[in-house]
């Protein structure tokens, strides 16, 4: 017997999964995590305590990022791995963000490492005048440890930083490198597992 009823148990299936308990402060805490992740690329940021449950295939950490980052003005591309009615309802209900029909229209994308690898070139990388208009990819992985080992370097990293996210294949790094070669345009990425995130901004290069 469970000591407490599951938080979702009492909810009818058509109800959206709950958002932050304190929308403003929790979104700010989550944003600080993103800021730290982007400032110190590859360093794992603990996302526990922000959101305990998430809809469908979204990790709680990914759902928290959605709540903090998405709004009416940010079209979001959903990879097939996360595109479920529950996720769409959650995004529409809490964020009000439109779902992009094409990757190129998206300000953000939520997708798996495999999908990111396959689709990367389809996203908007910004323009030399407005590099900030590039899409940001939120990449869900099964784990941020134990995957293929890589060393990254660049601004925010003293020396080099190990990264072991699942699903980041040599092909992923090669395609990413080609896109970001045209700095200042490029793609910023946030790697996510169940309760942690790591930043992979466009300024970071792979060492090996």
């Amino acid at each position, binding site marked *: 017997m469970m000591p407490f009823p599951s938080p979702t148990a009492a909810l009818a299936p058509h109800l*959206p999964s709950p958002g932050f308990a304190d929308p403003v402060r929790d979104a700010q805490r989550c944003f600080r995590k993103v800021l730290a992740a982007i400032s110190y690329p590859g360093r794992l940021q603990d996302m526990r305590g922000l959101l305990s449950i998430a809809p469908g295939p979204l990790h709680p950490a990914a759902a928290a990022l959605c709540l903090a980052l998405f*709004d*009416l*003005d940010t079209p979001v591309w959903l990879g097939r791995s996360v595109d479920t009615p529950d996720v769409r309802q959650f995004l*529409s*209900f809490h964020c*009000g963000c439109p779902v992009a029909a094409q990757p190129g229209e998206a300000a953000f994308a939520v997708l798996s490492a495999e999908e990111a690898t396959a689709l990367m070139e389809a996203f908007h990388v910004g323009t030399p005048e407005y590099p900030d208009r590039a899409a940001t990819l939120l990449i869900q992985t099964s784990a941020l440890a134990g995957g293929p080992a890589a060393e990254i370097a660049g601004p925010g990293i003293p020396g080099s930083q190990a990264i072991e996210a699942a699903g980041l294949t040599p092909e992923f790094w090669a395609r990413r490198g080609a896109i970001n070669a045209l700095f200042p345009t490029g793609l910023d990425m946030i790697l996510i597992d169940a309760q942690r995130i790591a930043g992979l901004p466009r300024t970071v290069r792979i060492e090996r």
Partner: protein
Amino acid sequence: MYVAVKGGEKAIDNAHALLAEERRGDPAVPELSIAQIKEQMTLAVDRVMSEGSLYDADLAALALKQARGDAVEAIFLLRAYRTTLPRFAASLPVDTAKMTINRRISATFKDLPGGQVLGPTFDYTHRLLDFSLMADAAEAPRAAAAPADDAAMPRVVDILNHEGLIEADSAPADAEPGDLTREPLTFPAGRDLRLQNLARGDEGFVLALAYSSQRGFGNNHPFAGEIRLGGVEVEIVPEELGFPIVIGEAELTECHMITQFTGSKTQPPQFTRGYGLTFGRNERKAMAMAIVDRSLRAGEFDEERRFPAQDEEFVLGHSDNVEASGFLQHLKLPHYVDFQGELVNVRALRAEAETVR
């Protein structure tokens, strides 16, 4: 060489403390409450809401208090505040024909369905200082009342256009209007962006442009077709509901200006319209906005663009008092290095000129 300058923190802290003390004024005089400002400085509050582009009378009153009554500073505060909030939705376009009327006049048509209703107006006052307001009022003034019928108050320009002599509204499009708070303004701007810009624009600037147009710097001899002031209900359609709901009420001022148009190769002679709409009670602003709106439509009517009020880039680029004030006031920031450079330059030029002489 670039020299970074630091310092002055103590002076800045003390300057802010001095500002706070001076804002409060003589402590022997009771402090103003937000409610007092909201209730008794209503038109200042309305101007701040209108140009601050945020319909919140309490915050506008707070901004005025904090800004010591400086409208532009208060508008800046409100604009800064709004950037901290997420946008949930855009409303359905408000229906000003369904306004609960507080004032409604027309200078072009005397007998209107619904009648001419003066409402609370400064018009017909003698502009003599009322010294009785210097004393504590014995009792609150009371307005007269008369039986109110539920007569509809359709928009004047709509009901009196049987002959087709007045330009009709463009068909209601469902097109998503541009939003200059989201995308930087580019030219040519559509009428949607022009109206948004003018609605936020500085009242003094818009008034001066309208005045210039009236005086001949622009092809405009307008009639006040209708001015109305009152409340409209604001509706949104939340996606989770799928039907429109009223979220509140906003007091608006609307003005239709009617201008004679002699016709062009493609259009018959008719009366054309300029449109003004603002938050709150801002009659002067709404009227000026309507005139400038019409001036900016010169291109639509094959009118030659010769004057400032007809020049979109000039008008829209300079109407915003927060931007204007910011660019002006940045001149107070240290320009020591720039100035040093110019100083060297001028000395060199002068030395050169003296050698030649």
